[in-house]
């Protein structure tokens, strides 16, 4: 299995995504440190709370950019199919967990995990989708 992106757009996707995720870690640290040490109030609470979400939203835009820039239709198709599995898996897990919380007193899961589930399902699906074309 090939790990390094085969196309220019794929490489641009990785070069954009890596620093975006690094920014996420920095913003997450800033938010956590600020809430722990500075005990902010008022509007700043909302600003700090949303701060780590911004690079994550950016990462979704980077996926969108990749789809629009990728001239290799096969590679584009693989990613789009993986995303569909990501959406489907995320919706399935969120729905199941929602009912478990409502009826079976399962612990509350932050809606932030929707983002994590999406990437996990997308990442798991991609090699299986590729295998279908070999």
């Amino acid at each position, binding site marked *: 299995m090939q790990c390094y992106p*085969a*196309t220019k757009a794929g490489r641009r996707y990785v070069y954009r995504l890596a620093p975006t995720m690094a920014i996420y870690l920095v913003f997450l640290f800033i938010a956590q440190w600020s809430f722990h040490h500075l005990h902010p109030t008022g509007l700043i609470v909302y600003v700090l709370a949303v701060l780590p979400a911004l690079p994550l939203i950016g990462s979704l835009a980077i996926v969108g950019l990749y789809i629009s820039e990728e001239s290799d*239709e*096969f590679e584009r198709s693989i990613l789009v199919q993986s995303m569909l599995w990501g959406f489907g898996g995320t919706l399935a897990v969120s729905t199941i967990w929602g009912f478990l919380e409502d009826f079976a007193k399962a612990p509350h899961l932050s809606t932030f995990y929707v983002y994590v589930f999406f990437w996990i399902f997308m990442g798991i699906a991609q090699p299986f989708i590729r295998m279908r*074309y070999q």
Partner: protein
Amino acid sequence: MKNRLRILRAERNWSQADLAERLEVSRQSVNAIETGKFDPSLPLAFKLARLFNSPIETIFTDEE
């Protein structure tokens, strides 16, 4: 969709990577098209036709 890409490639002594480079796609794309598991778009089919200097219908066939 069945195709004659493997034969056309062999006639020119091109590897899948060689063809991929000429088409500006990944080698996996060439393999998926060649094995008939991925149908190329019309623009890519035309690109292949131009590259092999053959009409599209002599490269691809819609017979099962």
